[in-house]
């Protein structure tokens, strides 16, 4: 079997993140990550430098030789500093060295296949995982699962009707679709697609509950992005100096607001730089921007930033402490008592004025971020699609149904029937009624990734 890698600890901020690699190639990946030719004795922990992209981090590494490991294969675990991005970069490096991303439940599946886990043990692990996630997102997972199955079964049921109608036309050649029947099928397909899309849209909130909101801090050098990050998260994570370009890597920290985790990513100031390391930081900043759910575009009186991105943006004017209040009723808007204040005020409409130094308006900013990302109140009783495999199944079903809707009008009926059956199977992978796909993969993909 190929060598797989995944995060074995929950995604998000934690003291330690454990990256697990399993398979024949695990040992050689460990050597490549540590740029080391030394022999790693099984079950001994080593403090090593892990090299990835253009950076490195200290980590504890441990090697388990097959069959004495969780999966029964060669396993390497890297205990790195906690942090979403750091872990992701180490995983990326493993992928570059030939590992593939572990599927959902892959480690448990391998453990089972290698005789390391019996069914009972495997189910026990699943229960523990579920209990943990229950507490995290305070939703009864059984209720959730029941609800999801019900929602999906309902759609699958409607789809079964359409499939049956088409199959009847295929097996009984004397019957053809009438114009009325054709438009009924098209309409019913459209209904199912709409409903599934609505379900898929809840995955945004579902993901937010699970992984938090990603907030990118973007702006010209030295407008105080790092100070703001520290102030918002009440930490001292980012190094703050007056020298522009101090922040060369993406640093993250998080805070909770209304029960949701907001993960801030400070970025290197985006500007032309001759410094090679800083250039790389700038590249990474652009990548962070792509991954973000929302962007805080930070300016000060000396640097007015503009940014063209489809992501939601909050324009933040930092260093409000350098300004004095005007007569404006809206206390968030302040203007500097300098000569250029009038001109600035006119062009800076829509900015929120904050001070990382005094903490002014930070709560207001947090509220705005919340409003723009958590698009409706997260309701503990409502259903949100959170499981990556479920999201994938629903997305796949939608994609197949869209294709089917098209081929129904343009191609032969047998193809439409095939696509609809595949979509039905995709939904059946969630409800557990599909018998046409590999059971073993399905059962074990119920496990959370990495356990």
């Amino acid at each position: 079997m190929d060598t797989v890698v995944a995060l074995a600890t929950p995604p998000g901020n934690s003291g330690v993140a454990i990256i697990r690699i399993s398979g024949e190639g695990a040992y050689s990946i460990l050597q490549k990550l540590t740029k080391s030719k030394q022999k790693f004795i099984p079950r001994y922990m080593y403090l090593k430098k892990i090299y990835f992209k253009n950076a490195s981090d200290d980590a504890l590494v441990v090697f388990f030789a097959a069959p004495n490991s969780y999966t029964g294969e060669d396993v390497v675990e890297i205990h790195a500093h906690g942090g979403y991005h750091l872990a992701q970069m180490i995983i990326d490096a493993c992928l570059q060295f030939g590992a593939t991303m572990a599927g959902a439940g892959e480690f448990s599946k391998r453990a089972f296949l290698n005789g390391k886990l019996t069914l009972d043990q495997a189910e026990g692990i699943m229960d523990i995982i579920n209990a943990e996630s229950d507490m995290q997102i305070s939703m009864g997972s059984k209720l959730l699962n029941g609800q999801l199955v019900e929602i999906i079964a309902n759609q699958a049921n409607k789809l079964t009707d359409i499939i049956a109608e088409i199959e009847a036309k295929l097996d009984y050649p004397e019957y053809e679709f009438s114009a009325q029947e054709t438009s009924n099928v098209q309409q019913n397909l459209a209904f199912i697609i709409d409903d599934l899309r609505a379900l898929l849209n809840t995955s945004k909130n579902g993901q937010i509950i699970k992984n938090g909101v990603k907030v990118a801090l973007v702006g010209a050098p030295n407008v105080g992005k790092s100070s703001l990050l520290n102030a918002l998260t009440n930490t001292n994570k980012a190094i703050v100096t007056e020298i522009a370009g101090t922040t060369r890597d993406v640093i993250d920290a998080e805070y909770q607001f209304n029960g949701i985790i907001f993960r801030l990513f400070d970025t290197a100031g985006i500007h032309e730089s001759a410094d090679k390391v800083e250039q790389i930081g700038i590249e990474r900043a652009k990548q962070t921007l792509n991954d973000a759910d929302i962007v805080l575009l930070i300016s000060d009186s000396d640097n007015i930033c503009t940014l063209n991105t489809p992501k939601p943006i909050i324009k933040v004017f930092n260093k409000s402490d350098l300004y004095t209040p005007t007569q404006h009723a809206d206390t968030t808007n302040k203007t500097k008592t300098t000569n250029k204040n009038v001109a600035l005020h006119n062009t800076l409409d829509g900015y929120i004025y904050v001070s990382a130094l005094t903490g002014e308006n930070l709560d207001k900013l947090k509220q705005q971020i919340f409003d723009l990302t958590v698009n409706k109140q997260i309701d503990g009783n409502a259903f949100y699609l959170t499981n990556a495999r479920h999201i994938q199944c629903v997305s796949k079903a939608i994609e197949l149904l869209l294709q089917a809707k098209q081929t129904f009008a343009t191609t032969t009926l047998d193809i439409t029937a095939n696509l609809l059956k595949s979509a039905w199977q995709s939904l059946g992978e969630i409800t557990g009624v599909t018998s046409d796909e590999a059971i073993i993969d399905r059962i074990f993909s119920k496990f959370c990734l990495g356990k």
Partner: protein
Amino acid sequence: MEFVASYDAVVIGSGHAGCEACLALSRLNKKTLLTTLNLDSIAFLACNPSIGGTAKGQLAQEVDALGGEMGVNTDKSVLQLRMLNSGKGPAVQSLRAQVDKIVYHTKMKQTLEHQKNLEILQGEVAEILTKNGKVIGIKTALNECFACKVVVVATGVYLNSSVIIGDFKKSSGPNGYEPSTLLTSSLKKLGIPLRRFKTGTPARVDGKTIDYSKFELQPGENNYSFSYLDKPKKSKLPCHLGYTSTAMHDYIRQNIHLAPLYSGKIEGIGPRYCPSIEDKIMRFADKERHQLFLEPESTSTDEVYVQGISSSMPANVQRNMYRLIPGFENVKIMRFAYAIEYDCINATALKSSLESKSVNGLFFAGQINGTSGYEEAAAQGIMAGINAARYLNNLPAVVLGRDQAYIGVLIDDLVTKNITEPYRMMTSRAEYRLTLRQDNCDIRLTELGHDIGLVTNKRYKLYKQKLLQIKKVTDALSCMKNPQQLESLFKQKSESLPKSGLTLKECIKRNNITIFDIAKHFNLFKDISPSVLEYVNTEIKYEGYIKNEQDLINKNKKLDNISMPNLDYNTLAGLRKEARQKLNDIRPSTIGQARRIDGVSPSDINVLLVYLKLHGKI
């Protein structure tokens, strides 16, 4: 015990399963005896005078590709050929033939009579003789014993059968033929589980009394033949399409208490897909009319088969209700419609080779296994014949996969699922429909048939020629054409002209362009047969979908390849009770088969996988 004579094999029954089984055995050089209740009923078409149709056409052509007789015999007796579903896509296209039922019988009888290694005897088999769990011979009703090592039971609907027309119920086979009354108890003694099924057939009416002007003409086509060995056949006679009337529906409703199905006279379980007219009217009450087809039975009789109006109503009700069909005002019934009940076995008692799990050398094929239809019977017949011959040679059985043939789907369903009504093949039963097309039956199966030894040199040569032609066409289609060369064709077919050149293959991927358009426009493929072009066209146009299906096949194969050891499922505590019972009953040969059993859940499969893993069987 004294044996009159000794054979390698005895085949009981000369219907569509029996004919294929005895031909396969004798063609594989086994000395074979075919016994039949009546020599005049060899290859008798007891219901419609037609072969093929959706999914059934594929079955018949698969039998042909393996070297069977059904396709050839159909071509000898064809009255009309039509390609069904031609607008609904290559996966579901099927050939259907109307045949002359008298010619079909006589031609098949001649073929059997001329077959080397085959003897035919009229008589009823009373007992299957066994010793130490192995077949050693048969005994007839006339108390004669014949020695043999294998028996293929292909008794169709003749076992303990009763014909029912209204209040009238009589022990009888189809069409007044004698039933077989002695064999059931012998099968019971051998531990074969039996059950009772029901089917039916419509009336035959006098064609001279039909007003055809009130029916729609359904002419045949001239471009097809059923067997790959034959040239295209001309259609000789048309069929006709008509409808029932509300007056007829009202009349049946008024008399429904006389229907045996509703009065409790019939106990057997009938097929849902082929309901009697009284069943249709009661179950689909909102439907104002039902279709019916008039099919000629033979050029040498005026009898006409009324497809769609099977019934077991009393004779006078039948006569009155048929006359309420527009065009049937003066119709004269020549043979009444009837229902027939018969004994059949639960085929889960069989291995995938169609051999009994409890008696070595005892094979079953055809309607006795709970199927319905000539093609389903023939498909099982040829496989039972092949595997009986291999049993005699100590060779492993040939089991076709669900991805390989409809025959594979059919037999896997029969031996795995607890069939609760007569089983008819439908395209929707096949999960790999795009792979199991009729245009590739020979490509799927002829090489295998050749390895088995049933494919004649003539057929094999034709097949090899076809492969060469396919290669020639495929090579020619990689030729690149520039936009100027394509312009007039693309314009004519309202396709947008590409900026750079396209290969001919890429052109065929366009919605409105077929290989035939390419052939015409570039003056290509003059020496290539249309069936080859059709095949290549399908393979190109549906390439992506076919590939997806192939991926799915490969994925599922992993589980199909895990074989199950012989174990007592009661000892596996993790299994649910129902699963334990079902698994003990059916004894699946692979994990793949186990998971297709109704009542075996994914978690039961998981328990099995854990067991196999822990015991080093995977």
